């Protein structure tokens, strides 16, 4: 049996709005071995939703998660994958496009100037007891059999888990011991095959746990022991106060807003994967990246519609249940509608035991400013007018812009500049000038 420990992942979307026409998104499906986690937090009230891209035989699936408190049956729930997919799509990095207007029209001339200025059991029980392990509770929720375990010491718990068919990675004992000393219990889930057959699904649905704790952390240490290389984690937080960041690792915004060549439209998934890998490298693999931070009421452009009130409730946004029902969701539009009391942050990290030795300690900030990862395609005007502005547009502005877009793409993804130039028909890029040529001008 393979033990899956809390981990996360996703891909991109499209819609029409002021910030460009939405054409593509990069959601979590881009990545292998990824986990998706949603943390809803208000004061000490916390709801954790976990899903991962487990591909094997469901009878081999198990998950072991440290939890800060005892968990009652009613605190566990199985969510629909659709809600997570929706949240993923809504917050995904996006590609938008603009169309240049006729440069001969006056309004556009002004815009062009501005653009130039700024680019953008019984026996079992006895055995457990002998090992110092207490099975505090046993539940079946949805397709999962769940145990809440506490233990006197880690060796007993690790032995118990192994004897009960859980294959723990090497080094688990020390980590388990650390969690036990911190007063944590273990939430252990595996698939109940009869119940799974009843669900009619061919995949496992996300598990949810609700609890109260002052610890705003996401335990990732057990996950790093699997030693299958770096893992991908997507973490969404839903709070009332604002953006969430990590307190023990730098939180960095993904570069956003750049214009890139048109041909990336068909290669957006490759583009974003390479861009993300480059960002990870640039930060020595030790940063957590923000891909989205926005009030849940709206989006611009929308990669997907904002989540409905019932979807937010399913994810565990407990405070919305206390408010009166509201009007149906507004369509995305230019001006933000009245904000709802939910702020979403999408964090993305690629981690292993070396770069992320400790759990993610999270921290709520009061920052409600909106941030999205968005790249821009700009279609040139292809009219035949021949005013002086149109001539200048074709001979100067367009080539300049193409070079700038190529440069952006090269810098963001590391794709070779010569290749990009060929792809957009620019000819070979100029060879870099030897440094001495500029030494004594």
């Amino acid at each position, binding site marked *: 049996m393979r033990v899956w420990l809390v981990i996360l992942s996703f891909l991109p979307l499209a819609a029409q709005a002021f910030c460009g026409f939405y054409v593509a998104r990069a959601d979590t499906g881009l990545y292998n071995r990824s986990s998706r986690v949603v943390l809803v937090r208000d004061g000490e009230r916390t709801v954790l939703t976990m899903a991962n891209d487990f591909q094997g035989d469901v009878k081999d699936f198990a998950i072991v998660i440290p939890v800060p408190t005892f968990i009652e049956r009613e605190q566990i729930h199985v969510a629909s994958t659709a809600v997570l997919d929706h949240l993923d799509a809504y917050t995904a990095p996006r590609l938008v496009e603009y169309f240049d207007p006729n440069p001969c029209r006056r309004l556009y001339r002004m815009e062009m100037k501005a653009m130039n200025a700024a680019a953008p059991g019984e026996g079992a029980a006895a055995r457990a007891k002998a090992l110092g392990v207490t099975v505090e509770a046993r539940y079946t929720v949805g397709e999962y059999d769940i145990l809440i375990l506490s233990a006197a010491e880690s060796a007993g718990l690790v032995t118990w888990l192994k004897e009960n068919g859980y294959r723990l990675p090497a080094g688990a004992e020390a980590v388990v011991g650390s969690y036990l000393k911190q007063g944590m219990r273990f939430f252990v889930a595996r698939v109940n095959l009869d119940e799974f057959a009843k669900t009619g699904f061919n995949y496992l649905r996300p598990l949810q746990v609700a609890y109260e704790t002052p610890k705003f952390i996401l335990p990732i240490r057990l996950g790093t022991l699997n030693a299958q290389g770096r893992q991908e984690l997507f973490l969404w937080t839903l709070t009332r106060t604002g953006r969430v960041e990590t307190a023990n690792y730098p939180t960095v915004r993904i570069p956003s807003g750049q214009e890139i060549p048109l041909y990336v439209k068909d290669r957006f998934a490759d583009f974003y994967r390479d861009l993300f890998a480059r960002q990870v490298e640039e930060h020595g693999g030790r940063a957590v990246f923000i891909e989205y931070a926005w009030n849940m009421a709206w989006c611009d452009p929308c990669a997907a519609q904002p989540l409905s009130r019932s979807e937010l409730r399913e994810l565990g946004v407990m405070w919305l249940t206390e408010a009166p029902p509201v009007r149906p969701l507004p369509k995305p539009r230019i001006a933000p509608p009245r904000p709802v009391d939910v702020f979403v942050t999408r964090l993305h990290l690629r981690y292993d035991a070396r770069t992320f030795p400790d759990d993610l300690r999270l921290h709520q900030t*009061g920052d409600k400013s909106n941030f999205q990862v968005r790249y821009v395609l700009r279609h040139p005007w292809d009219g035949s007018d021949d005013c002086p502005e149109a001539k200048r547009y074709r001979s100067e502005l367009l080539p300049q812009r193409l070079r700038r877009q190529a440069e952006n793409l090269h810098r963001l993804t590391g794709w070779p500049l010569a290749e990009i130039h060929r792809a957009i028909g620019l000819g070979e890029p100029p060879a870099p000038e030897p440094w001495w040529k500029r030494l004594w001008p």
Partner: protein
Amino acid sequence: MSDPRHLQIAILTGMLGYGLGWRDFPGPGWIYLLYPLAALGFQWGFCRIFRVGFDGRSPLISSLSLGLLLHTASAFWAVTAAFVAVASKFLLRIDGRHVFNPTNLAIAVTTLATEQVWVSPGQWGLGAFLAVAALLGGMMVLRLTRRGEVTWTFLAAWGALVFGRALWLGDPPAIPWLQLQNVALLIFACFMISDPMTVPDHRAARVGFAVLVAVVGYVLQYHFYIDEGLFYALALCAPLVPWLNRRLPGTRYRWPGTVPSRR
């Protein structure tokens, strides 16, 4: 550079410039200008009211530290923090000197009062941490600050607690090391807890005080999970200083070239 405050201003300005330019500091840029403007303005006002000469160095240091540590998007709370910092020096006084380090009190009061301000302890990353540590370490070794034993004692006590905890939990050293890579911790140790105006006068009392703040801060952070634990710890312990000064009198610190007066 006879006055250590000049070096402090230079270091803090450099760090803030680096933070704003390269470290993706949150919030609108004008906040970082608003802090010094508001602090200098309040200082000037209080100097008028209390009829003392105006000296902009201390409020400048307070506001630069606020810019480095206390993030907000709210002009109201930025001005309030600057006010708390400056006002505390004039209004909260025992035995002729102020009780709280101004920046520390401003951080403690505003983070408790509102969710619109926050401290970002993880924002700097390893490279910046090492650079700042080298810079501040050099400053300490060259004895460019006064009463450096507070800083050393505090860092030693804090390090011992964090590494001791890891040892007890059986965690690898990478974990406590990560916990110590915290620029906010360095600013706290070098500029806040060691503020010569608010530490005890007697050497033994200073050492004891540094250890106490480390222990209280550790309990708040690791047992109550309060990220701002250190700042609250110093604010909680500061009122003990006047009492310590009476029990264990020592030489009172004065900035070079100043006569005893309200700052």
